[in-house]
């Protein structure tokens, strides 16, 4: 560790030409917009068009379908009062699946709460999702926060509900991997609203300074609940925020799974090879309400939702697959129907499962229960006797 002037970057001079040129390039990407497919599934960028086999394409499609199907079912289950809350994913499947498929299994994912497609793409089954949402005895997160999924088995770290909290975690994990010499990459998802949080600022800044192997994916679905992205920031795009941290920012069509896959793959591999972090703004649209507790008619028109339907990532990809001769539209629909029945079947089974033990929340607070919690546990157990004495049926 040397001391001295080497630590100053052109202090009393303008940025040198190479820096200016690099930033020029970064600015172009951050204000631009890349897509492989247009609204009708026509290829418009051959260079970014990934060379995938029909099987691989079919897999991407199936994953998006599975995400949409389970999403719809979770919505229904919430309406039936079975699920506490659901944050619909509809319309955002391309980003979730595309990014997840660009990662390796050993890479770590730090999602938010709107990426069912990514969980499935990394191996989480519908049954597990339902165990979680219904808090059955097999709920891998044992009745902790709602609308959150994760499992160490798939290197999916369950998200904190306070949005953005996971951003520095992804950076820290990436720094740790680098320190330990593990050639893995971390990826984190978050929304347009989350870019306003301190965690975003801290995370991006650390990643820039330490050149950490991390990829940041902003799902810009145009809204943070009711707040439109134009009210979230005066910056013209979210990708341009990366430039504040010396990090490249790319703006792409988040409803086009092919561009998502290509650009994410490039970013992930760049990170793996020591090239440092990338921020990707995937432009998308939240077709449903913010959550099942939301009423979007208070802040947006049905016409708007309609207008964005043309951009539906499944619609566009189906048209592409059809044109490519991978799958006809009818075959595509059959896949949807098949998954729908399959999931219905699973739900029937999962609904039968018993719930979590009533003392579940006493566990996993500490590695070993300290004395004060043990004493509280005793009081906890006593309440059932007291209730019996009073002839009370305790709500659980």
């Amino acid at each position, binding site marked *: 560790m040397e001391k001295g002037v080497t630590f100053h970057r052109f202090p009393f001079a303008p940025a040198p030409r190479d820096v200016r040129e690099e930033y020029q390039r970064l600015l172009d990407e951050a204000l631009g917009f890349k897509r492989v497919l247009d609204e009708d599934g026509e290829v418009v960028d051959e260079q970014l068009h990934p060379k995938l086999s029909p099987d691989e394409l079919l897999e991407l499609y199936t994953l998006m379908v599975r995400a949409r199907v389970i999403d719809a079912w979770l919505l229904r289950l919430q309406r039936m009062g079975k699920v*506490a809350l659901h944050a619909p994913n509809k319309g955002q499947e391309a980003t979730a699946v595309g990014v997840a498929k660009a990662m390796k299994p050993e890479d770590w994912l730090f999602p938010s709460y709107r990426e069912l497609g990514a969980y499935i793409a990394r191996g989480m089954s519908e049954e597990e999702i339902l165990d979680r949402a219904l*808090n059955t005895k097999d*709920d891998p997160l*044992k*009745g*902790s*926060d*709602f609308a959150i999924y994760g499992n160490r088995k798939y290197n999916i770290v369950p998200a*904190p*509900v*306070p*949005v953005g909290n996971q951003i520095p975690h992804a950076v820290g994990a990436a720094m740790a991997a680098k320190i330990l010499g593990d050639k893995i990459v971390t990826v984190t998802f978050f929304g347009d*609203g*989350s870019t*306003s*949080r*301190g965690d975003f600022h801290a995370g991006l800044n650390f990643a820039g300074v330490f050149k950490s192997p991390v990829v940041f994916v902003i799902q810009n679905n145009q809204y*943070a*609940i*009711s*707040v439109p992205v134009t*009210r*979230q*920031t005066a910056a013209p795009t979210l990708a341009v925020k990366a430039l504040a941290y010396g990090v490249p920012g790319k703006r792409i069509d988040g409803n086009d799974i092919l561009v998502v896959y290509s650009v994410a793959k490039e970013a992930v591999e760049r990170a793996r090879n020591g090239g440092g972090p990338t921020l990707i703004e995937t432009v998308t649209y939240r077709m449903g309400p913010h959550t099942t*507790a*939301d009423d979007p008619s*208070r*802040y947006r028109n049905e016409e708007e939702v309609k207008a964005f339907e043309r951009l539906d990532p499944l619609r566009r990809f189906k048209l592409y697959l059809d044109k490519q001769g991978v799958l006809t539209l009818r075959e595509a629909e059959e896949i949807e129907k098949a998954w729908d029945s399959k999931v219905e079947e699973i739900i029937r089974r999962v609904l039968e499962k018993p*719930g*979590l033990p*009533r003392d*579940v*929340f*006493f566990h996993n*607070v500490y590695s070993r229960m300290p004395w*004060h*919690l043990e004493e*509280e*546990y005793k*009081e*906890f157990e*006593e*309440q*059932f006797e*007291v*209730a019996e004495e*009073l002839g*009370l049926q*305790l*709500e*659980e």
Partner: protein
Amino acid sequence: MNMVQALNQALREEMRRDERVVVLGEDVGRRGGVFLVTEGLIDEFGPDRVIDTPLTEMGIVGVAVGMAMYGLRPVAEIQFIDFVYEAFDQIVNNVAWVRFRSAGMYKTPMVIRGPCCGGIRGGMHHSQSPETYFMHTPGLYVVMPSTPKDAKGLLKASIRSDDPVIFLEPKVIYRRIREEVPEGDYIVPLGKGRLVKEGSDVTLVTWGAMVYQALEAAKHAEKRGWSIEIIDLRTLLPWDKDLVLESLEKTNRLVIVHEARRTLGPAAEISAYVSENHIDMLRGPVMRVASYDTPFPLAHEKLYMPNVARIYRAIREVMQW
């Protein structure tokens, strides 16, 4: 009228009365807040005074501090109080301490309000009771209403207070409790509790939604012939010592019930205060009925929070002395 409507009315009346009053937070404008506490305000007062903000609690509170220093009376909504921690730095150093730091040259007359507490299956981050963090921070008032009428009067008093107020709204009773709420102006003074119910054997001190659990538990106790006095503190800092001591003088038995966690929950202060200054008033232990010292769970929340059985058990315990 329910509590949401009462709070909405309080805001509306205060904004009409005093044009320095502004409302800001996530989704408070066109969405009217996720619980509709600010519904319709933007239509009457416009986007300059009903401000949809970017998603940062630190920003909401930090900016409100600047507004208050300049002369406005901001009411900052935290969408769920569980998200307040990003603003904790601003709350401690600035909301609470600007007056001290500036030797009284600047002040922060502002309200930070938001839904708190459990009971709606909200899980870890839509259920918390963070009174302690604020009560341990000098410079703040900490308030929690339990009825629509009190909610309106307390919110008005908070907006008019020259000192900053943390205003916690038990969301489980937002729409569940209805009562007659006077139209127009009245305040419920900060620092004053409410005698919910008279009794002579045990003083039960509580607040927020626990008032209703306490009432239920008292019924069971009274079946056994024990007479329970219930006090709703309403303001947690400074809490109404006089009301509590007056009651204790009669009962000599104290049970404190709250949704906050036990360890260093607010009951610890009340208990320690009484032990320190009035141990002669106590005939037996001061019992605390609180949530357990774990994060707030999604599963089995009704067994996590104080319930009738647990409150009854504490009453039974002190009645043995």
